[in-house]
């Protein structure tokens, strides 16, 4: 029993969350780029996928990430009013407001799905955000084995 507990504690300490970040080309990707060129340090747990706009982010993308074994997903784009395509982020915001409820109901709760606005000038915000959500996901633990979306063969 004691041995199992030690193993669990070790596993928690060693747990490296896999976080998939869907970001828009114009703001958050540039913000992440700024974090990099400014040599800001942030956890390497986030895998960034660049898309033209948050409006392009279909809920299917988020499902696919969880299907492939992500522990959490971050979706980030331009602040309201700053969208390169005028209103893509407003459309996305409505979609997320409903989609997060659906995922929460099916067992992928708010500790697994993050939304943010990060502008091209906010390199520090991006680095802080990634550090913060990595800690939160680490505290929540792996999504497996209770990942309802997971691909199993």
């Amino acid at each position: 029993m004691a041995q199992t507990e030690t193993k669990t504690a070790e596993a928690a300490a060693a747990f490296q969350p896999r976080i998939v970040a869907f970001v828009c080309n114009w703001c958050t990707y540039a913000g992440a780029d700024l974090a990099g060129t400014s040599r800001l340090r942030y956890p390497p747990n986030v895998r960034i996928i660049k898309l033209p706009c948050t409006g392009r982010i279909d809920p299917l993308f988020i499902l696919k990430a969880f299907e492939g074994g992500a522990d959490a997903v971050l979706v980030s784009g331009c602040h309201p009013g700053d969208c390169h395509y005028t209103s893509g982020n407003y459309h996305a915001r409505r979609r997320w407001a409903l989609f997060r409820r659906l995922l929460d109901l099916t067992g992928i709760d708010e500790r697994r799905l993050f939304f943010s606005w990060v502008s091209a000038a906010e390199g520090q915000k991006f680095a802080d955000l990634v550090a913060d959500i990595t800690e939160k996901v680490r505290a929540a633990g792996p999504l497996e084995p209770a990942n309802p979306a997971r691909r199993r063969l």
Partner: protein
Amino acid sequence: MSTSEAIRADAARLLAEGRAKLVIGYRARGPHRAPAFVSDPAGVDVLIYDNLCKQNLAVYLRKPEVRSRGPVAVVAPPAVMRSLVVLAAESQLTEATVLAVGPDAYHGVLDLAGAAALLKEKYADLAPSPELLEALAKLDAMSPQERARFWTDQFAKCTRCYACRAACPLCYCARCIVEKNVPQWISTAAAQHGNFAWQIIRAFHQAGRCTLCGACEAACPQGIPLMLLNLALSEEVAKQFGEKPGYDPAAKPVIGSWKPDDDQGFVR
């Protein structure tokens, strides 16, 4: 005159006058109620209406084989009328002739505007059943892991027959996302990941459109509680955007429109 008799009389009159060439209603099949398609005034005797009539007949109105027989009249309880109003709001219907029935009354022959007015006047506060509300509250009280397990068990039963899609009047895409395979977003195998993606996306594509008629869940041969997903989304739509689909034929789509001051408390 009973509701069934009133429906028969109006159906016969519409057909005889040529205002409708086809009347879609309900008929008895043993203890069940099946759809009836009546094109001859002499055949209206099969039509009945009682509280066993649960199928959403609005599902037939967009089908080409039904449209080509038009003009069509449809026996419509409030749930069907709401579906018709959503279809009109989405430019899928321009006109409809309905034989409007309520749980306790027959309201006669109405057009689309009349049906919308009747809904607002008499059926504005159609509430989900207490059992359904209780089931959703129970699910929400569980831990995320328990909820994941609950849905994994439920979706494991899914055979991907798509009866839920066929029964829903609002699932009308000519080519459904699940049938698109370049790229294939949703696996068509009746396995966990494909079932989860299908059920989530089916529910999400109804967000802001679903009228909670219950046709999908009633059609499911495996008894998956789809209404829990639909109800959770409907409640969220009402809470976040103050919308209740199926009352205003000129309503803007909930997803597809936006307001600058939509709540963004969840965005960091």
